[in-house]
């Protein structure tokens, strides 16, 4: 049980939820309001949806020993693009065509950014951190270009459904995440693709020599990451019915990388754990919710977050756990070890 990669992240998540329960006994209660299921747990899933999506994309990128710093900017671009399309359709809420056009163009743009990243990295050989840094900086510029540097408010009603609508009593964004997660799990675990990704991350040269098209695998994971970020951007901008080129998705790339690492995937590439990532993202979101519900002072929020992340990372490290358990049992073990050494030297 404790050997499982998911064990320690799950423990941390459980502890966070329990802390909430102490401060708010009704934390786990899910009731029906306006015909929707509401409650803190639903809220965490709903709020965490964009982060989970991005983290799923990021996991595959990191599995190929890469990194995608551009996702935050892609969120802003995607939201800006969608707002640009549906803007001017106010009052005209019955036509659904602008909605689908906005979704198609926003997602198309995001996939194109992924293609751009993938081309730079796989075909031209730029290091991932540098290549995606370009988009991280330039993407926000593009988003501001689209919105004209302003915060665009969207009055087109159907657009709000993506991030604020409900289906079968649950927020629609949860279904989006579940769908993307299932597709990612199926493709990586039921087909050979997952193995290919891990092998490219482990040793690109060896994979290429054994007949795997490393370059195309790399290209594909960046496109997938861009796609995930694009969907997340739609959810985020739809939720507040506005597009903000400056602040939408700001620092999301860092949270996503953190979620991946908490989930047990190494930044050195190779093996990856999608479910671990999902739990990692949920930990980050639960932490935010906890901070709000406990009422921690605004000035120390970042410090509290850092401390929790540090604890999670320490718990994740086998070395650290060995040292700790060594500390507790050292008094008994040490003389015994000396004895053995002594015996051997004889």
């Amino acid at each position, binding site marked *: 049980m404790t050997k499982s990669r998911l064990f320690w992240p799950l423990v941390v998540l459980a502890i966070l939820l329990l802390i909430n329960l102490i401060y708010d006994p009704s934390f786990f209660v899910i009731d029906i309001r306006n015909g929707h299921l509401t409650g803190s747990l639903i*809220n965490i899933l709903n709020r965490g949806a964009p982060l989970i999506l991005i983290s799923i994309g990021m996991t595959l990128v990191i599995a190929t020993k890469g990194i995608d710093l551009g996702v935050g900017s892609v969120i802003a671009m995607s939201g800006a693009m969608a707002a640009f399309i549906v803007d001017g359709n106010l009052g005209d809420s019955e036509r659904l065509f602008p909605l689908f056009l906005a979704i198609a163009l926003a997602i198309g743009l995001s996939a194109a950014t992924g293609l751009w990243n993938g081309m730079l990295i796989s075909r031209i050989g730029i290091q991932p951190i540098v290549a995606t840094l370009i988009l991280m900086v330039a993407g926000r510029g593009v988003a501001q270009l689209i919105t004209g540097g302003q915060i665009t408010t969207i009055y087109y009603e159907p657009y709000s459904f993506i991030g604020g609508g409900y289906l079968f009593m649950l927020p629609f964004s949860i279904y989006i995440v579940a769908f993307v997660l299932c597709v990612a799990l199926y493709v990586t675990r039921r087909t050979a693709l997952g193995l290919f990704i891990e092998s490219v991350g482990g040793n690109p040269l060896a994979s290429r020599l054994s007949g795997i098209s490393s370059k195309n695998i790399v290209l594909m994971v960046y496109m997938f990451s861009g796609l995930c970020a694009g969907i997340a951007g739609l959810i985020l901008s739809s939720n507040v019915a506005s597009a903000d080129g400056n602040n939408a998705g700001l620092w999301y790339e860092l949270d996503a990388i953190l979620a991946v690492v908490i989930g047990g995937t190494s930044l050195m590439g190779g093996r990856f754990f999608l479910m671990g990532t999902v739990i990692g993202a949920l930990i980050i979101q639960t932490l935010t919710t906890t901070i709000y519900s406990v009422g921690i002072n605004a000035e120390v929020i970042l410090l509290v977050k850092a401390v929790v992340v540090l604890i999670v990372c320490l718990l994740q490290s086998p070395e650290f756990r060995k040292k700790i358990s060594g500390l507790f049992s050292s008094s008994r073990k040490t003389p015994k070890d000396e004895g053995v050494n002594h015996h051997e030297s004889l």
Partner: protein
Amino acid sequence: MKNISGAKFLLFIGMALLFILTACGNSNDEASGTNNTNNTSTTTETNNTSETDANNSNEAETNEEGNATEEEATSEKLVIGFSQVGAESEWRTANTTSIQDAITDAGHELQFSDAQQKQENQISAIRSFISQEVDAIVFSPVVETGFETVLQEAKDADIPVFLADRAVDIEDDSLWVTFLGSDFIEEGRKAAEWLVDDMADHEGDINIVELQGTVGSAPAIDRKEGFEEILADHSQFVITQSQTGDFTRTDGKEVMESFLRSDGDNIDVLYAHNDDMAIGAIQAIEEYGLTPAEDIKIIGIDAVKGAFEAMAAGKMNVTVECNPLFGPQLVELIEAHMAGEELEKRIAVEEDMYTMDQAKELLDSREY
């Protein structure tokens, strides 16, 4: 890298050029917009009239300003260098346009530089203003510290410096003529005074939740301070929860959701440090099933267009103006200084406050 073939290398150069070109295109637009004084002056005049319509109370004053600037324009043409922080919000864009228009309308020559949030850009811009021997420098510092050397250079060159919107943290206040900017504490006080006045007949405790701005930023600190200062004398007003919403709609909505979840039915008032957070919070309140502006009174600051839309729709009660359109006031100060008048070191921008009743008629005249 060693595998790069010629064609691929060319492709990469092409991509890089594309990025650079788009960036340049942007700044060229701005530059041409400001240099074509003759073309823009006609459009900006119409802007100014709508501005005076909006500020009914200031109408007389602004007209006087207009006359004054016209007279002086004929007597002396100044070259004014203006270094702006960047273009990070609607507010800032409106501020930039206001100052640019005011300078060119008064018949002066404008040298504009966008610092793009970087201090080093700003320092080099000021140095280039000095070497061009401009008559006055206007700048909104990106950060509060580190401008001593370059301001000393300006002083040695005998060029007066005017701070717009943001202050610097420098002991030697002879380095600049005056600081013209909004008084954030006063904005907080105004918000609280409106609330005390509006709820005067209310019996029992009034529970207030507060959405703070970005932690550590001057507007967040001062708007909190001013608000609390007034409420300190009225013990029935209680701030039950206060949390940062980072000045954004997304965070404003998320934090408001958590406020509602923990104490939803007891909240009487929401005080948000800017309008965007208030707008996000309004959505949270609606989704929670309460009626914004009725069940929960909503106070915002800034008076951006979105707030007027919300107020016109009856979802927000009041917004305290944080006026970016202080260009004419600034030009007047520069001219006064040039004419030898003594100016105070700190001058507050003329600001107003708008309620729900005024929103509908003013909505169309709002520029930002």
